[in-house]
């Protein structure tokens, strides 16, 4: 992350200098600060909402029932998770939210899953294998129906907006398989 950030900033300043866009560059920094606040405020709302809901799930014991159907799949994928750990449920809920394209629920539930995984982490600042696997699957964004995209296509007059559903699903599954495979290979050869 440090390298990428340094590269992005360094390259940007260099280009701003060469392209004579220093003014635009500076302006964009303040715009970025503003939108970071806006996105954070938005996140504050939905994260608090979903943490409230998941707290009810925990207090009522629903947490042990919800994960039931998917426990087999999730514990197979995340082998080091104790089967009754809250992380199993939060990971399941996050995957389901992603699958149905509920972005506003997926991110807060993903944060909850990360916190649950962190409670199993013995070194506070170093990432665990389970966290990496979880993030990689999330960035592959497996989704049944991409509603936002279809909505835009339909609005702008596509004759068959749903034509992209199958290719999107294929592409997303293939790239998820690749991503998990790549992660696994890295683990194998970087020990």
């Amino acid at each position, binding site marked *: 992350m440090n390298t990428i950030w340094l590269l992005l900033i360094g390259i*940007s300043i260099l280009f701003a200098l060469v*392209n004579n866009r220093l003014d*635009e560059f500076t302006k964009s920094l303040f715009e970025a*600060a503003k939108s970071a606040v806006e996105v954070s405020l938005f996140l504050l709302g939905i994260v608090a909402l979903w943490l409230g809901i998941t*707290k*009810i799930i925990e207090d009522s014991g629903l947490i042990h029932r919800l994960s039931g159907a998917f426990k087999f799949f999730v514990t197979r994928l995340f082998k080091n998770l104790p089967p009754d750990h809250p992380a199993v449920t939060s990971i399941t809920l996050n995957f389901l939210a992603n699958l149905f394209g509920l972005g506003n629920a997926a991110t807060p539930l*993903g944060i909850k899953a990360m916190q649950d995984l962190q409670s199993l982490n013995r070194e506070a600042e170093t990432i665990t294998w389970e966290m990496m696997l979880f993030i990689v699957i999330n960035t592959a964004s497996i989704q049944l129906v991409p509603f936002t995209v279809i909505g835009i296509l339909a609005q702008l007059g596509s*004759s068959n907006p749903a034509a992209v559903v199958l290719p999107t699903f294929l592409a997303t599954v293939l790239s998820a398989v690749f991503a998990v495979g790549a992660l696994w290979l890295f683990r194998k050869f970087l020990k």
Partner: protein
Amino acid sequence: MKTVQFISQLIIPLFILLVVGYGWAKKVRVYDSFVAGAKDGISVVIKIFPYLLAIFVAVKGFQASGAFDFSRDLFRGILLYFNIPLEVISIAIIKPLSGSASIGVFTDIVKTTGPDSLASRMAAVIMGSAETTFYILAVYLGAVGIKKTRYLVPVCVLADIVGIVIAISVVRILF
């Protein structure tokens, strides 16, 4: 299509009903539980904020400085060689960086090339199959304060690149 959309609209209300109903049946003080859980949201977002700011500054600066346009031109040759519409580059570069910007770029592609063009379809599949990787990394890692990410970032970047190649190929083959 309509039914699928209806089901997906139904999921969250049904889910909340299930949660609150189950809590009530188990005699949980649901209101107090909800408030106690929601309170944690504040500390989570405060933890995430600096990471989010860092990502936004880097991404916006990259766009404003003209570095984005330059990297787009770099790929022009490759796309021409494979006979892929040039518009696809913009969406391929912007999608992993910024969600809101990518919706803008996508709408623009659909408007200029037509909703049923090859460019629109490729862009649509990239939109649906790629994720705003750097945002996810910032938010998820920031929320738990992870600093040592081992080989996660290279894997994510590699997966993004391959994912976009896969998206383009799938559209090529199917349409």
